[in-house]
């Protein structure tokens, strides 16, 4: 089953002068088509300005397409009467955790969403409990969000989205502002939500190491999807990726460089363990 379908999507950022005449049109999405399978973990790569964030905002109904349609669980995001259902179904987490947290204590912040849509109090507390547990932040529930680290704040933001009982979470570079520890915690958390709660994940990122465990990787360029496949398929095309201003994980790069120079290694190595396994027999002395 598809949870997200986008057909022939076009979106333009239009600049107008003081008289309201169009001065400049910047096409962010150019007849893009994509379908996302329910329960899958999809990573979206692409350089700054390739249209990733615009796509994310269209899925959540923050922006509406100029042409084409987005369906979230069969609901058209342009249907004003369904917009709140769309946002409940596809929650969103942004880059800067400080811009997303409003509560004075963690549990209040997580309960804000459901309270806003009139969920009964008892049910709110149940959801807060479950969401905090899901992101591993239960022990911080009475703390002030200001005193948390970046990674912890981001997990609180994710809990806030979870409390809306979404089927899908779109995360727009959730780890860009975090240190290595925070990054690892957030990525582990969203994989856990995907695995145990069956939440569909759409992860936008610039960190190649965060992508290798995804079910599917999409690469965007110029408002279109230019590569689409499993991490192994995508990262085996090193030169093509570099053309799109992307990178590959360090072990993949090292294996690729060694292969280029005639070292017999398997085609696309994504993990340290794979590289060690392939290299050791070659390096051991007879």
């Amino acid at each position, binding site marked *: 089953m598809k949870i997200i379908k986008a057909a022939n999507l076009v979106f333009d950022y239009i600049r107008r002068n003081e008289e309201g005449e169009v001065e400049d049109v910047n096409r962010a999405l150019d007849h893009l088509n994509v379908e996302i399978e329910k329960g899958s973990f999809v990573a979206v790569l*692409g350089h700054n300005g390739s249209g990733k964030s615009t796509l994310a905002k269209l899925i959540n109904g923050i922006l509406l397409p100029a042409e084409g349609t987005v369906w979230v669980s069969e609901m058209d995001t342009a249907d004003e009467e369904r917009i709140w259902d769309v946002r409940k179904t596809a929650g969103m987490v942004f880059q800067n955790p400080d811009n997303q947290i409003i509560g004075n204590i963690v549990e209040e912040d997580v309960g804000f969403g459901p309270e806003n849509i009139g969920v009964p109090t008892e049910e709110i507390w149940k959801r807060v409990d479950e969401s905090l547990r899901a992101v591993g932040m239960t022990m911080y529930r009475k703390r002030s969000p200001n005193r948390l680290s970046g990674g912890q704040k981001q997990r609180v933001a994710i809990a806030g989205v979870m409390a809306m009982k979404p089927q899908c979470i779109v995360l727009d570079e959730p780890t860009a*502002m975090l240190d290595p520890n925070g990054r690892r915690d957030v990525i582990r958390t969203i994989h856990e939500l995907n695995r145990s709660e069956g939440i569909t994940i759409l992860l936008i990122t610039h960190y190649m190491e965060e992508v290798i465990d995804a079910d599917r990787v999409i690469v965007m360029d110029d408002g279109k999807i230019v590569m689409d496949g499993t991490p192994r398929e995508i990262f085996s095309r090193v030169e093509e990726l570099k053309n799109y201003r992307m990178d590959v994980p360090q072990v993949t790069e090292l294996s690729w460089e060694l292969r280029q120079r005639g070292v017999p290694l398997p085609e696309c190595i994504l993990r340290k363990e794979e590289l060690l396994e392939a290299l050791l027999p070659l390096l051991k002395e007879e």
Partner: protein
Amino acid sequence: MSIQAIDLSYTYGQGTAFEQHALRHVNFEIKDGEFVGLIGHTGSGKSTLIQHLNGLIRPTGGDILYQGKSIYSDGYSLRELRGKVGLVFQYPEHQLFEVDVFSDVCFGPRNLGCSKEETEKRARHALKLVGLDESFYSQSPFELSGGQKRRVAIAGVLAMRPEMMILDEPTAGLDPRGRDEILDQIERLNRQHGLTILLVSHSMEDVARYVDRLMVMNRGEKVFDGTPREVFRHYRELEAIGLAAPQITYVVNELRDQGIPLDETITTVEEARDAILGLLEKRGKLK
């Protein structure tokens, strides 16, 4: 000539119940022309430290010497210091505000009291240093790409003609190519123009590739200070304080654990590639 931190300490909320020691007796000297990296997890004191270096915060203990003189001594011009020690904050593009790129870069030198002619000369030079040609001058800074905006912001600091530049995570949120472009640019400023650089980063891969010397902060203390190769050799201790070594260091160390004679201080893909190729060649396994 250098910038020196002497027994630098800073306590937030001193004397209150919320007292927090952000810096504890930090000592170091950064010499002119050095390219130094600064790493540490969130809350380790990095930001507090760099705000001291151009006098934005007054320490609760210790001193900062710039070219041998205490920046907190009577009559010392902090305004002048800030022209010499340029600070590029995180997400510096949030501080762009002028109608076009050129005016934005002119803001700094004009504020320092430069003549119109000198201001424009500096702005042109600074923009050239970050690789933005005249076609960008009249563009609105808000319509540039993420990497371009950041370069404008860096040019704004360069136009003050600093002797040292401190950059707080200058590549956060940039795509891989944009990241490489900015770091290459910074490297050129250091190598070709002799600018002293202090680079704060969360990316171990980036510091391994670019800096000559690496300082590591933890709980307000400086815990390591050396070349990246020396520092990353302590990767197990780095992990214990919430950091890590570049992925390559782990690969090399696990190979070493299996008895493969590789240099334990390898930190970059290129070094690992050459070392492995050399070994294979020696064993006659490379056609």
